[in-house]
């Protein structure tokens, strides 16, 4: 049971990193990124391929963040030319392009067969079952660092500017700041966090395949952010934990409804998450941590 809880905790913390990154992009700056999973996948495959090629974990993680952020650069540039709705479509399309590229480029990613044998974190230390506990601890530290960074950022002059972009870009230009440059920076920063989350995921699951990077992952992250409260860093934390309670809690619901098969239960879980989103939107549209404005 403890091993299960640690595993759920690790996944929750990975989702938390993704949600913090998305919250920076959408919650604070207003950039609609429906391609979160693409940067998550890029981070995961980058770190996995590098470590399989003999790189140590830490530099592989750093490169995963950098590659995800660099890939975000041209998409961020596109956001300058597109209105919010079109950026949403472009990023959604981009996430599918990334997934299909992973599927097709077998020489690099092994395609649909997947990438096995990715080194588990802390395994080389010979601490056995404690390796996952150590992973959980490192993820807690990374999330605390990300939360601290976000809280510092949004209270800084830079943070005020990116929140001003969400309100009105022309008014930002009117005070002599170029919103385009800021939007690209924010897009890269959020995507870098998704890349870091991907690296953690790769070295926890130790096997990657394209079907782990479906758009559903992006929508889970959006749900976590909405439930927690957009534009609130604490909301990203609360939202990802609530999401995990719904996803994992619904597994136990099968004990009460034994007539439902395992496959059917997967659909029931999705329905429950959707129901939670609907209920939150109706009864608490500002999210768990948001205040009514």
């Amino acid at each position, binding site marked *: 049971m403890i091993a299960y809880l640690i595993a759920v905790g690790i996944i929750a913390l990975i989702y938390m990193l993704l949600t913090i990154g998305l919250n920076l992009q959408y919650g604070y700056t207003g950039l609609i990124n429906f391609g979160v999973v693409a940067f998550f996948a890029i981070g995961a495959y980058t770190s996995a391929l590098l470590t399989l090629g003999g790189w140590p974990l830490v530099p592989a993680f750093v490169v995963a963040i950098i590659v995800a952020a660099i890939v975000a650069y041209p998409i961020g540039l596109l956001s300058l030319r597109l209105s919010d709705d079109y950026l949403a479509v472009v990023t959604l399309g981009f996430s599918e392009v990334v997934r299909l590229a992973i599927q097709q480029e077998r020489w690099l990613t092994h395609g649909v067969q997947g990438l096995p044998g990715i080194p588990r974190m802390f395994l080389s230390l010979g601490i056995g079952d404690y390796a996952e506990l150590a992973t959980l601890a490192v993820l807690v530290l990374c999330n605390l660092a990300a939360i601290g960074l976000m809280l510092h950022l949004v209270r800084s*002059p830079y943070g*005020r*500017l990116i*929140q*001003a972009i*969400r*309100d*009105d870009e*022309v*008014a930002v*230009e*009117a*005070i*002599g*700041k*170029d919103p385009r440059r800021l939007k690209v920076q924010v897009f890269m920063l959020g995507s870098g966090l998704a890349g870091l989350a991907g690296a953690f995921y790769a070295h926890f699951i130790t096997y990657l395949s394209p079907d782990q990077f479906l758009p559903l992952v992006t929508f889970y992250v959006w749900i976590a952010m909405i439930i927690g409260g957009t*534009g609130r860093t604490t909301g990203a934390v609360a939202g990802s934990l609530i999401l995990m309670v719904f996803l994992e809690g619904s597994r136990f619901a099968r004990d009460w409804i034994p007539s439902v098969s395992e496959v059917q239960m997967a659909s029931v879980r999705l329905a429950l998450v959707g129901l939670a989103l609907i209920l939150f939107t109706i009864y608490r549209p500002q999210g768990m941590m948001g205040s009514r*404005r």
Partner: protein
Amino acid sequence: MLLEVNDVRGSYGGTDILHGVTLNVGNREIVTIAGTNGAGKSTLAKAVIGLLPQVSGRIEFAGRDLTGLPVEDRIAAGLAYVPQVANVFLSLTVLENLKVVPNVRDATTRIARQLDAFPALKPRLRQRAATLSGGERQMLAFARALLTQPTLVVLDEPTAALAPSLVQQVFDLVIQLPAQDVAVLMVEQRARQALAISDRGYILDQGRVVLAGPATGLLADDRMAKLYLGSEH
């Protein structure tokens, strides 16, 4: 002259909206640009501040050629701009709206000075701008524009979307600006009220200046008043 706009043509990327506009603004002057809907008034304001994508002609400010310079350089040169309607950041507090302005030297002192000039904002510093009334939002927009100590403020329809009871309140704010060594170039739909507090005015029609002169002269010109100013409320 502080601002000289010479033969400016401009568009958002397609057909020209401005067809060779020439105008000027002197130190501590209030100059109104009036005209019908679609005459190119707001487009002209954007051309002056640098927000119009395609501009030809010459715009000089304090003897310096601004043509081709980005907005931030024009603001550094002493211009300020208050856009139409969406001119405050609604999710930020009043204080954050003032602090968001970049490159303000000795910002704390200057913010305090603006709060003295607009005392109605003082008790609302921690309030989100979304909770302010229309008049208070305009005060905040003015205070923010004045933080960089401009010598010319471009106001794009400062009374748009305001309740009639608040309109005079905004014009009262505008009329105080020359006393602070600030000239005003104001685009306004409420031409009669705007000209009543202005030194001079320009009437635009289809991207061209069709009438210019002292505000009192324009107000007395029945023919042009009927054509372009309408019956004022």
